[in-house]
Every structure is written in C-alpha cells, then in structure tokens.
C-alpha cells in the first residue's frame, strides 16, 4: 500500500492539478485547469455560477471522474485506476453545500462512524476525538442531537467536525455557506477562519468575498471552465486585473447597483 503514496510525507504540494478537463455529455465544464495548492495554504475559488468551480472541487477527490488531465492529491495520482481512492479520501475532508449529515445518526454519531469503520479506531478513542472536534466548532452542547433538530449553521459545523475527526491533511469546502440563512453564515465562517489560522490546507469554493479577501492566501477566479486569473486574495479582490473579474466582483459586492450598459444583456439573478 505504501508505494501508492510515494510522496505522502514529502515536500510536494498536497494538491497539484494539471490540464484537467471535465465534460458532462457534450457540455465541457472544465477546459484545462492547472492549479497547485501548497501545504498550509488557503485558496478560495470564486466565479459566477456555472463557471465550473464546484466541479473542479468535486474532481479533486474524484467524486466526479475527470475526462482528461492529472490530479495529484497528497502525492497520489487520483486518475490512476490502481490508486486506492478510499485511502486518499480518508485524509481529505469534504464539506458540502447541503451539509449531507447522516440523518439516522446523532451529531457525535456522524463524527464517530467513519473513524470506527475506516480508521478502525476504538470506540472510546473515536468518541473522544469526535467530542474534541464538536467542541472546536462550538457544539459541545449539541452532541446528542439528530441533524433534524439542528439549525443549518449547526449542521454545517457538525459536518466540519465530522471531516476534522478523520485528521485530514486537506479540507475541501464546496460553497459551505450558500444554503444558510444570512444570520447563520458568520458562525460557520468563524470556524473556517480558525481552521485556516491553525494552518490547515484548504480549498474553498465560495461566494463570500470578504472571507476570501480577509482569510485566504490566494484567490482563483474561474469563468467558463477556465481559470481567468489568480493571485493574492487582497490584490485580486480589491484590484482585479481582468475585466471579467471586475464585472463579477462588482455584481457580487454591489448587486443592486447595475451599470446601465449591462442592462438588457443579462437577466437578473
């Protein structure tokens, strides 16, 4: 098994994507993506809906099968059919827009199940780790609640604790706050900020421009299945180099102030 992870402990960047293409039928969603994420780096991926940013994230741990290209995650070539995907995924946490908590298990049950089944931890150890992580996301008083009894923000924080309980080396976030009521977004972002400051390697697909600007090291702007530009977050968001980035940021940051020249071109969202 070890030879499948030749670079697991090496200095190579945990995420290296080369020439990634993904088509759904005739619809090419990703048209050649190159992206490297360094150890401890926090990268935000922004862009209009349909730009392929979620597909890119889902390709990383092979929830979507890429059409072409190479994805190296923790040194393992994910597109190689001989790579044991489960083993790589164990070390890569994923947080979904719709939380995807297991409704038949309590909050702590959600955090324990994969530790027991995949990492084969003892029950006591798994429970202890789950408790520690639920505490970390501020839910030590909700451990025995079923997901249906938790708010969206609480569910998403349980989902983060569930991923953290596997001791991931990389965390992938797929629009983690997009399904939340506005007043619940802050709690989730605060947990993610703490995580980033603790040195976790993170790839975050998001519409939260302020989070991208203030928390992430680098921001990637995608449109039409390609990376239009990327750079240090503060630079890119406050002073974008491309017109497409500029138009997108203008719309997102100031949705009611539509420029006259754009009227009639696009339908309001």
């Amino acid at each position, binding site marked *: 098994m070890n030879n499948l992870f030749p670079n697991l402990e090496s200095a190579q960047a945990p995420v290296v994507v080369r020439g990634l293409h993904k088509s759904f039928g005739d619809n090419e969603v990703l048209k050649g993506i190159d992206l490297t994420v360094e150890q401890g780096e926090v990268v935000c991926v922004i862009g209009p809906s349909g730009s392929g940013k979620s597909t890119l994230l889902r390709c990383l*741990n092979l*929830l979507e099968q890429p059409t072409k290209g190479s994805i190296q995650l923790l040194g393992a070539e994910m597109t190689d059919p001989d790579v044991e995907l*489960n*083993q790589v*995924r*164990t*070390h*890569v*946490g*994923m947080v*979904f827009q*719709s939380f*995807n*908590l*297991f*409704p*038949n298990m309590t909050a702590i049950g959600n955090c324990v*199940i*994969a530790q027991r*089944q*995949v990492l084969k931890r003892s029950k006591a150890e798994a429970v202890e780790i789950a408790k520690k992580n639920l505490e970390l996301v501020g839910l030590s008083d909700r451990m025995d609640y*079923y997901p*249906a009894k938790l708010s969206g923000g609480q569910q998403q924080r349980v*989902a983060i604790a*569930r*991923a953290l309980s*596997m001791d991931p080396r990389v965390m992938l976030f797929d629009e983690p706050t997009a399904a939340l009521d506005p007043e619940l977004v802050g709690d989730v972002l605060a947990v993610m900020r703490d995580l980033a400051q603790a040195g976790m390697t993170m790839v975050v697909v998001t519409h939260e421009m302020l989070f991208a600007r203030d928390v992430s090291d680098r921001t990637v702007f995608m449109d039409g299945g390609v990376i239009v530009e990327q750079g240090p977050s503060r630079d890119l968001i406050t002073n974008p180099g491309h017109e497409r980035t500029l138009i997108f940021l203008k719309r997102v940051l100031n949705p009611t102030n539509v420029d006259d020249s754009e009227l009639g071109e696009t339908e309001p969202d």
Partner: protein
Amino acid sequence: MSVLPYLKPTSRQRLGRLASYAVGVIFILLILVFTDWAHIQKVFFNPEVAVEMWPAIVTVAMKNTLIYTVSSYILGSLLAIVLAVLKLAGGPLGWFASAFIELFRGIPALLTIFSMAYVLPIAFGLRLPSVIAGITALTIVTGAYAAEIVRAGIQAVPSGQTEAARSLGMGSGQTMFWVVLPQAMRIVIPPMTNEFVMLLKDTSLLYIGGFAIMEKELVTFGQDALSMTGNATPIVMVAIAYLIVTLPLTWLVGKLEKKLDPKR
C-alpha cells in the same frame, strides 16, 4: 335578463345528496323486511358450529398462518435486500437478480408454490416437506416483490449521503450498510408493512401443497370445517380471524406514512 329560479350549485348538491340517502334507506328497509333472518343466523353465525371450531381455529389455524407469514416475511425481506443491492450494483450478478425478480413477479404465486411442491420432486427428485416447500416458495415470491420496494427505497436516499460517506473514505459496501440501507429501511416501512398484509393472505395458497392436520392454516381449516358441518359459519370466523390481523396493520401503515413523510 331572465329571472328563472336557478339553484345555487351548493343547493343542487344538497338535493342530490338527499335523494341518494333516500334511495339507500329504502333499499335497506327492503332488505330488512324480506330477509329470512333466522336462516341467515343459522347458516352464517351458528353458535354451535362456532363452539366446535374453538380453540383449534386459534391454536392451530391462526398460529400456522402467522408462522408461515412471519418466517417467509423475514426470509423474503433478507432475500429482497440482497437482490436489490445486487441489481443496483449491476454486472452479471445484477443481471441475475433482475432476471430472478422479473421471473417471480411475472408468474402467479400459486405457480411458484405448485412448482416447489410438485415440479421439484418430479424434475430433481427433491421432495421437501410441504410446509418447508411452501415457506420457500413464499420467500421467493416475497423476495422478488420486496426487492423492487427496497430498490426504490435505496434510490430515494439522496446521492449526497453516498458522496459524504465516500469522501470520508468509506468503501461502497460500508456506505451501503451504514449509511444508505438504514435510511432506505425507514423509507420502505409503509410499503413493506403492506407486503406483510399481502403475504398473510397469500399463505392461503399453500393449501395446494397439501397439509397434515396440524399444519393447516386458516383457509384450509375453514374449508374443511365447512365441508364437515355443511355450514358457512367457519368461513365467517376465518374472515374475522384475518381481519383481526390485517385491519390494525393497515391502520398502522396509514399512521406510519403520515409520521415518516416529513423529513424526520
């Protein structure tokens, strides 16, 4: 502008309802007047015949019906889960599962029971005790029908559940067993309870395989009592015995459907 005495739709409805009530009342009165009640009572509700059937109708017939039902239900449900998982997994085994399901859903249950009891012995010299053959046949039939229920239940579990489990590193088998199946089981509780009611009634088909005296289930028992006494009371009692089990279950299904409908 005409001033004809139009009736409002609601008034017209009320008149129509009144008329149908009147017809019903007259009909019932006619039946009450012209029926020979003494005869009805003697043929269908004869206390002497009823006493004679007691307690065997419960200790033998109903007990056997329940034993046949519960054992084929448990075995059939397990078979159904295996068939559904295989079918969804695809490949040669999935193809086999599909063929099995279609075959036994496509032919009458009676034919399956008949084959178990008579065709197997003729073809392969395999003669199972009639009760075992019957339960095996009902297990197969239930498995085939319930497999489609379970398959629909599995597919009703949102794909995000599988994605979440797989991205935690769980294998496809672990994901199915720990995440998908428990949720699918919840979803299929109402239709599977219906399946139990159907099966309970289908155990009456086992008569075709032949029973020893102590193996008789409700319908065979009632039939024998009918031919021995020449009286219809046993049939009424058998019907009541079925209803004692099926009515609460049907009521329970309605309850469960309401309770399980909203997302927990």
